[in-house]
């Protein structure tokens, strides 16, 4: 079915620039598997959060001053003097956490249902690129209020680059624009923090383009075989996503309006002071698993390599996973391993927030080793030895077979 504009003006534009047809194809008729669960809502929620962050961020930038002497007070000016400035800032600060919550769920959904496997390898890669860009953006954004954690977080993380042999120190000075984190650092972080979200928008467009080329995965992991298996995106998934969005916004609102500083650190309400180091320098919660991996290695360079390696190995996932079955629903052993892996990531997050002392060091190392063992050893092996459950003939057959026992989906 192709797009035939009825309105003369739309048709005039369409003949010269087929943008309406493109949007119609992408948002309206896009054939989607009919069995997507609510785990598939998190992609569109991530898109919504990106827009929320950009809109609130642009307005915040109108009131913020990127200077070491004024950044902290300009944020308080937003909180106290700008009309609804507190709302904008709390939306933006909590929005970052919400964006990561949604994206982490989106990634774990991809891991569970094998969404990274052929033909979606590039789609997966683009997603990981978005994730990396998000981390860079969030890190630089956290520096902007110029509180104690901003300053010391920036110092610790930029200092990681000094682990690079020979040129490390030069690279760090180059990143700082000086010999310590200072005004040039703040200025460039502000500039890049404003730039990167638009780069993310670009990669998101590629991500969706790639998605619409290979089509959405689904809880069975089966390809769409005939018309019975798919439904148009609109109105079925637009309305389903809208319901998911409303529920998610309630969750967001609880933090935004009733615990706006819960996910922040009290030290960031103390103006940055290069002469006073906080007792425990901790990054925002969404970096904690990687921070735990970094600190699990006694060697600085080793820790940095392992931390970046933790994301690098995700790029190789489509080739590490030897199973030709996508969905964990039909992979009894992988399904168990998946949940152990989730538990391992939760453990890493917990350890990342604790001081590196006593048992925390040991547990951090065990969890780090398991992270890599899961991806580099268990995943390839399991694919070779696991005996998958019988697959349904098609998505449609699976949906019909499920109807009497709808609880199964809830468990999956």
């Amino acid at each position: 079915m192709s797009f035939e504009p009825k309105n003369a003006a739309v048709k005039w534009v369409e003949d010269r620039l087929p943008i309406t047809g493109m949007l119609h194809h992408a948002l309206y008729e896009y054939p989607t598997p009919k069995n997507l669960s609510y785990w598939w809502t998190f992609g569109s929620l991530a898109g919504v959060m990106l827009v929320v962050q950009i809109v609130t961020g642009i307005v915040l930038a109108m009131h913020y001053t990127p200077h070491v002497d004024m950044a902290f007070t300009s944020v308080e000016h937003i909180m106290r003097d700008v009309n609804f400035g507190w709302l904008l800032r709390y939306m933006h600060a909590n929005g970052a956490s919400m964006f990561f919550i949604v994206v982490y769920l989106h990634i774990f959904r991809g891991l569970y249902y094998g969404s990274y496997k052929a033909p979606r390898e590039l789609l997966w890669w683009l997603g990981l690129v978005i994730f990396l860009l998000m981390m860079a953006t969030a890190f630089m954004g956290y520096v902007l209020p110029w509180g104690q954690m901003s300053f010391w977080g920036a110092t610790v993380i930029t200092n990681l680059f000094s682990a690079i042999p020979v040129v490390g120190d030069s690279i760090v000075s180059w990143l700082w624009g000086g010999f310590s984190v200072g005004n040039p650092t703040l200025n460039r972080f502000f500039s890049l923090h404003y730039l990167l979200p638009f780069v993310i928008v670009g990669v998101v467009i590629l991500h969706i383009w790639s998605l619409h080329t290979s089509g959405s995965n689904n809880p069975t992991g089966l390809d769409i075989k005939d018309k019975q298996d798919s439904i148009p995106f609109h109105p079925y998934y637009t309305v389903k996503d809208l319901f998911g969005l409303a529920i998610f916004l309630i969750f967001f609102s609880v933090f935004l309006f009733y615990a706006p500083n819960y996910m922040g650190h009290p030290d960031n309400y103390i103006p940055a002071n290069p002469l006073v180091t906080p007792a425990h320098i901790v990054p925002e919660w969404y970096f904690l698993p990687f921070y735990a991996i970094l600190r699990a290695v006694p060697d600085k360079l080793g820790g940095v390599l392992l931390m970046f390696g933790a994301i690098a190995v995700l790029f190789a996932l489509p080739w590490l996973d030897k199973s030709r079955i996508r969905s964990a629903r039909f992979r009894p052993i992988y399904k168990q391993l998946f949940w152990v892996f989730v538990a391992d990531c939760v453990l890493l997050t917990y350890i990342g927030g604790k001081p590196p002392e006593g048992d925390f060091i040991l547990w951090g190392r065990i969890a780090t080793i398991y992270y890599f063992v899961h991806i580099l050893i268990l995943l390839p092996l399991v694919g070779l030895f696991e005996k998958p459950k019988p697959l349904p003939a098609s998505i449609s057959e699976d949906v019909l077979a499920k109807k009497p026992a709808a609880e199964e989906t809830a468990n999956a």
Partner: protein
Amino acid sequence: MLKHITSLSMAALVSLTFLGNAQAASDAIELKSGHWKHGGIFGTYDRAAAQRGLQVYREVCAGCHGLALVAFRTLTDLGFSGEEVKAIAAQSDFLDGPDASGDMFERPGKPSDRFPSPFANEQSARASNGGAYPPDLSLITKARASGDDYVYSLLTGYGEAPEDIQMAEGMNYNAYFPGHQIAMPAPLSADAVEYSDGTPATVDQMAHDVTVFLTWAAEPKMEQRKNIGLKVILFLLVLAGIFYAVKRKVWSDLH
């Protein structure tokens, strides 16, 4: 077998969490709760307490601690009239200028001014306080974990040092300060201020009142935030209900 591994690792994780919490609890000092009226979903600032707290701040704390982010005009939030705010502001003098002839001049404060800081800079503050720097209090309850309970506990936590603690020169024992040695001497003593509403000015009462005032100073938009939040969430609940009904209707032709 794998199921066992899963449940084992889950159990390990859960017990570790409890272990960690238990350890954290034994490390951290348990704070006194001020039983605040500003807590909870519907909590609002206790105006009378905050007004008394302003008096405590001005007569006791302001000697050493600034409140540089708070403008006098915002005191109307606490129930002061415009005239009262003008009078409060006028009690401090501010350096302004330059005037037409290029000279700086002193003038009484206006509602648009912010609370004056007692020291010109950090060095002068340290010089007057035996090397310690009294922090600005504008954000103090947000800059400490459980800030309101912390400030209240700290102000009422002075006492004789236990025998096993060797106090450093010029330091004071405080049960709630990290490390228990604080440079600030006990700031409050009974009847340090005289409340115009007749409330007895006990140390506990003054500590409570000034904490309410400082909590407001750190988060002046809290009431507006909670108020809007309630409406937003009620709206979203209805919206979610409508979307759910529409979703059921739209999908009904598939099932």
